[in-house]
């Protein structure tokens, strides 16, 4: 896939809560094919103390409007400044980067996301649904306050929630949801904090489910030049930016 560097226009900012926001960025020309799990590397021009681009998961794609949606958590200076851009601002984007989640056909898939790791799961659920798969998405958050944006998943399948305080959905972590005990799945797809992904990997291993995880290692370039974002696999160090971010868990040393 050809990688591009393009200027996008910020067309919409949606505050989800004090930690998370969604940006809609629009290209001047038709978007290339974008696969679920791929990411963009965004330049933060409105903060001089931010030197490198920020890699962000693609949350959703609207080919009709040439819009890419980014789901962002304010973690540091870069993600804070991106959330302060004005509508109409220019955003330099290098994309589409990385590989993608597998898209099986006519299978039963469970998508498990925690915290900001839900970012790639919306577009994934859409692509899985379109390929004829039965999609269940479980989002794990701290409390009902963080259970935002759920409506968007509903056209593509079932959406379930776990909260740590029990204020919405089932109480506990997403990997403790009863649906995982009561039903069988062919595939599990996950993104989020490493302990959660490792719990998804353990569940998948025990239940003979094919498991793919998306890693979020820090990186400088995003296209395989700097070799900074490696993860240790059974075949040695691999770049998360080009050979990932999605890995079959069997290839990792987890």
């Amino acid at each position, binding site marked *: 896939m050809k990688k591009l560097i393009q200027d996008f226009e910020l067309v919409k900012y949606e505050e989800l809560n004090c930690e998370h926001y969604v940006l809609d960025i629009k290209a001047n020309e038709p978007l290339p094919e974008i696969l679920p799990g791929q990411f963009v590397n965004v330049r933060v021009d409105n903060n001089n103390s931010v030197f490198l681009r920020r890699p962000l998961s693609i949350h959703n794609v609207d080919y009709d409007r040439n819009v890419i949606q980014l789901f962002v958590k304010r973690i540091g200076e870069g993600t804070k400044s991106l959330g302060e851009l004005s509508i109409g601002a220019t955003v330099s984007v290098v994309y589409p980067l990385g590989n993608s989640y597998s898209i099986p056909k006519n299978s039963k898939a469970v998508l498990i996301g925690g915290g900001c790791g839900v970012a790639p799961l919306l577009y994934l659920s859409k692509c899985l649904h379109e390929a004829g798969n039965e999609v269940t998405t479980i989002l794990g958050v701290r409390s009902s306050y963080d259970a935002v944006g759920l409506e968007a998943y509903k056209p593509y399948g079932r959406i379930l929630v776990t909260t740590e305080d029990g204020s919405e959905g089932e109480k506990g972590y997403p990997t403790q949801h009863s649906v995982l005990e009561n039903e069988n799945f062919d595939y599990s797809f996950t993104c989020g904090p490493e302990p959660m992904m490792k719990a998804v990997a353990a569940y998948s291993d025990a239940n003979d489910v094919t498991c793919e995880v998306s890693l979020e290692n820090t990186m400088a370039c995003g296209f395989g030049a700097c070799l900074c*974002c490696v993860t240790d696999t059974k075949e040695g160090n691999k770049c998360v930016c080009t050979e990932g971010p999605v890995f079959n868990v069997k290839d990792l040393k987890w």
Partner: protein
Amino acid sequence: MVNLEVKLKDLVLKNPVMTASGTFGFGEEFADFIDLSQLGGILVKGTTRYHREGNPYPRMAETPSGMLNAVGLQNKGVENFCNDIYPRIKDYKTNVMVNVSGSLVEDCVETATMINELDHIPGIELNISCPNVKEGGMAFGTSCASAEEVVREVRKVYKKHLMVKLSPNVTDITSIAKAVEGQGADSVSLINTLLGMAIDAETRKPLLSTVTGGLSGPAVKPVALRMVWQVAQAVNIPVVGLGGIMNAKDAIEFILAGATAIQIGTANFIDPQVSVKVVEGIKEYMIRHQVSDINDLIGAINLK
């Protein structure tokens, strides 16, 4: 029309803009973004005698106006380069040079010997300055005696352009530059990264798996510029300047300080098209200043 062509001894560059090793992969990574034939040359990823896995993650930390890296020369070894990578990149219409690294003199000699056989590789950059390899690398470049030894032995087997990349982590870089010139280096490139470190105050942990790493980016530019200026006055071979060059203005500064050519490194990560933009920017500068030949700018700093 302006003349951008420069010569590093017998090696002709169509313009003075090269890309720095370790920031440009094998060139292929940038082929979607730029036309590689517009560059004076590219320095491909550091190559060692044998396969190296490099250092564990995390290998990178963003710092004010720069970054630290501790990649540790991850590469598949020179045989893999010759057999698998060279056939893919040999027909690029630019000077493709290989950065040769190693912790033992004999490894550097063997690597250089193999690369000497590759018709489409007009030169090597002997890296005596990598700060991220435990057993050595930088050790060669921090004493005159060891720098002389490795350059002398590689010179015996390597017949084409021999550029030597110098470490800034020394008291007097001019003495190292003179030492490698004395052993037959055709040019010197400087600077490699400055040894640095970063700590997360909240977790009290270092940000790099190796604790220390190499600092690059605009943060190092004034140090690099000073060293290029000093070395250019101390040696008679061409100097290739690098360290924090982000745009054409930075590149011109290095040329005025005495660099015959420049390399763009960390900036490639932020703007993968920056190298060709610098070529265009140098042209615009020359037109604006009514300079018809880039060679008239080399060392043309006005000290009066």
